[in-house]
């Protein structure tokens, strides 16, 4: 396999087996710099497993994941993040006991100071640059008014948007989104789409897993369809929309795959 220069993420021949179950087989996926690459597929197709393999939460049975020339396989989650990959989880992973503002400030320290830094005598008051950026991002995601609330007290949709702000403050080179609009109202979904389109305009590379076809077709430059742990189709949104194999596998032919 040759890697073209602008391929940021390359999932190369990845297999993942849980006992007798082939969760992923022979996955080969290339994500080009600046693109929004959507991974869709029915429940249990292996989408979240694939994301977990990329992020280092799961080790592949064979094959490897290469990010910008560096092999991710075998690295620890914090090392993978330090290379420039941030992730929004399917179930929001947040600091529920801390304030919304602190939730968004914390990832900025990982970006600025690295994986470990003993800065115990400097006050948080002197971190005005990080604080200001966190406040701007909170304004972007519509949570500025709630910056002093306990993050645990936010609604599920608000937690997701806060988690997105937590990732954005790191200016990641690759952003992985696991169903970023699940559990959101139509209105919140639309604001999130607008927000993601704004990020896209800045040229951030994204991999997005999503059920909501409205979201997928509003954002994706390229779509890979996963079914039964295999990639059954890959291409531009229009091509995927018209692909009969995809219609068959994804919706059992019962519905048409369309943006609503």
């Amino acid at each position: 396999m040759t890697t073209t220069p602008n391929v940021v993420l390359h999932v190369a021949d990845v297999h993942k087996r849980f006992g007798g179950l082939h969760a992923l087989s022979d996955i080969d996926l290339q994500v080009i710099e600046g693109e929004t690459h959507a991974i869709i597929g029915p429940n249990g197709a292996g989408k979240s497993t694939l994301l977990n393999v990329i992020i280092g939460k799961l080790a592949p049975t064979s094959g490897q994941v290469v990010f910008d020339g560096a092999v991710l396989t075998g690295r620890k989650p914090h090392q993978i993040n330090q290379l420039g990959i941030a992730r929004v989880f399917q179930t929001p992973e947040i600091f529920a006991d801390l304030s919304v503002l602190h939730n968004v400030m914390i990832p900025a320290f990982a970006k600025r100071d690295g994986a470990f830094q003993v800065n115990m005598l400097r006050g948080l008051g002197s971190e005005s640059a990080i604080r200001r950026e966190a406040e701007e991002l909170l304004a972007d995601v519509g949570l500025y008014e709630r910056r002093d609330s306990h993050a645990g007290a936010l609604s599920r949709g608000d937690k997701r948007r806060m988690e997105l702000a937590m990732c954005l403050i790191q200016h990641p080179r690759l952003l992985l989104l696991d169903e970023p609009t699940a559990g959101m109202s139509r209105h919140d979904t639309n604001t999130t789409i607008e927000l993601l389109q704004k990020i896209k305009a800045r040229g951030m590379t994204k991999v997005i897993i999503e059920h909501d076809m409205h979201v997928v077709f509003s954002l994706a430059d390229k779509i890979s369809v996963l079914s039964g742990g295999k990639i059954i189709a890959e291409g531009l949104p229009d091509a995927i929309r018209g692909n009969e194999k995809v219609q068959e596998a994804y919706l059992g032919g019962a519905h048409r795959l369309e943006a609503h």
Partner: protein
Amino acid sequence: MSSSRNDLLLSVGFALVVLAMPIWLAPFGAGYPDLLQRFMIYGIFAVGFNILFGLTGYLSFGHAAFFGVGSYTAVWSFKLLSLDAFPALILAVIVSGLFALVIGYLSLRRSGIYFSILTLAFAQMSYNLAYSVLTPITNGETGLQLTLRDPRVLDAITGQTYVGQPVPTLLGQQLSGYAGFYFCAFFLIVAFVLAQRIAGSPFGMMLKAIKSNQTRMQFTGFNTRPYALSAFLISGMYAGLAGALLAVTDPLAGAERMQWTASGEVVLMTILGGVGTLVGPVIGAWLIKYFENILSALNDQILVRFYSFLPEGVSELAVKVTSKFVGDGWFLTLGLVFVLVVIFLPGGIMEGVRRLANLFRRPGAPTPRPTAHVQPAE
């Protein structure tokens, strides 16, 4: 919002309360140096413990080991180097820090209950070693004491000589009585201000974030292990300092200081006062030491006199029941109080204070969500 001014107010207020203790504790019968010294020492122990348990969420059941190591180191420094308190304190903090580094490194390979059990096991090992193999260092059951024949190299060089029983000093001044209290009070205030700085720093924020969600921390790019180890190390050094100060005020070190009951006591202090709060652990330490002092001193004769106003049969019954809760039975009282606090006031005394304050400030206003949790990190 000027949080730095609030911090300053809190530390100044705390210092004033501590330094004025001989005055305001006198009406409670606690204004004498021996007890005040213990208030200071266990206050330091609890403040340090809270950095690990309160901020980072790791519940150690073995911190008495570092306290004991601090005591032994200090007494050895008095024996071999000098009766001056400073070399003893510095060495004690270094040695207990090294100890904490090793035990912390091994124990932090696990979290939650397994971490707690590991720390407990290491502390009990230290305790048993102090009684057996390490007798040449610890002097076993007798405890390590100062004698007139100790070499005291530094003192010999500077030509200092002593008359009578050797007593730790500070630049030639004996550290007994109120001098000892103010010496310890100085360290409690410094320890408190330092803990306050840590809690309000980016580092402290990372510790709280580890307690809140370790997984998120890792996926956010933090290597959480060295953070937790730093917290463990700092709290171990605090414990060593406290142990050394106990040796300064009373130059004798025994292995019982390292026993699991002593480790459990600092856990109780922290939870009773309020886990994760700054002042709570100190208040918890003071209350436990105060009531231990009163209740463990009571005996049947005192109780008989106390209940003498009651009719004969009733007074005997009252004495019989009460005697189970005082003297050696004081731990029973402590246990009961602890159970009540954990069930009805899981945020400790500080949560109680907060609830009361809210009650008076705005009747009917919703109480803010308590920030303190008693569970260790996952």
